């Protein structure tokens, strides 16, 4: 799964620690999501969308392989 977390965070001038505090997770978790090493659960993905006041699909997009039939 791809995501625009780093871009959205940079637009708001937030550090990884700021976002981690807002979401109640560790900074390492934010870093792992941004670098694509970890895909968040659906509840956390919705929470991220809520913090950025946007729809979940504008942040997370599927890989080409995961949408292939």
């Amino acid at each position, binding site marked *: 799964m791809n995501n625009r977390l780093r871009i959205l965070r940079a637009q708001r001038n937030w550090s990884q620690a700021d976002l*981690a505090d807002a979401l109640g997770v560790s900074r390492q978790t934010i870093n792992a999501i941004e670098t694509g090493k970890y895909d968040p659960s659906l509840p956390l993905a919705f929470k991220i969308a809520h913090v950025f006041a946007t729809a979940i699909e504008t942040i997370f997009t599927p890989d080409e392989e995961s949408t292939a039939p």
Partner: protein
Amino acid sequence: MTAEHHTAKRRYMIRFLGAMMVYSVLIMITGRTIRHVDPTWAKVLLSLLPIIPIGVALSELLRFVASLDELQRRVQFEAVATAGVLTCMLSFAWGMLEMAGLPKLPIVLVTPLFSASYGFGVWRATRKYQ
């Protein structure tokens, strides 16, 4: 790390280390006195005494894991899985080697083997998500 997580980690460290200190004292007491204790039921009770602080330490570990976020819990899960696989493989392999004539090792060594494998598992899983 959130403030709540920091507090939970601190509480866990204090209680876990406290339980392990009690365990160390009880192990020393048991080791020194068990030969002089009679009857057998008293020996059994005395030898099981160090299990109590181990139970406290493990319940604190479970409470700490419950306070972690989802990625940290996944790291812990992968570490436990790694520890389980390594402990099963190594203890089974040594059991087979004993049949080939290698010295018999006490079963109490399985716990430190699991702990070391768990530490390795945490290191491995942490690196994977860094």
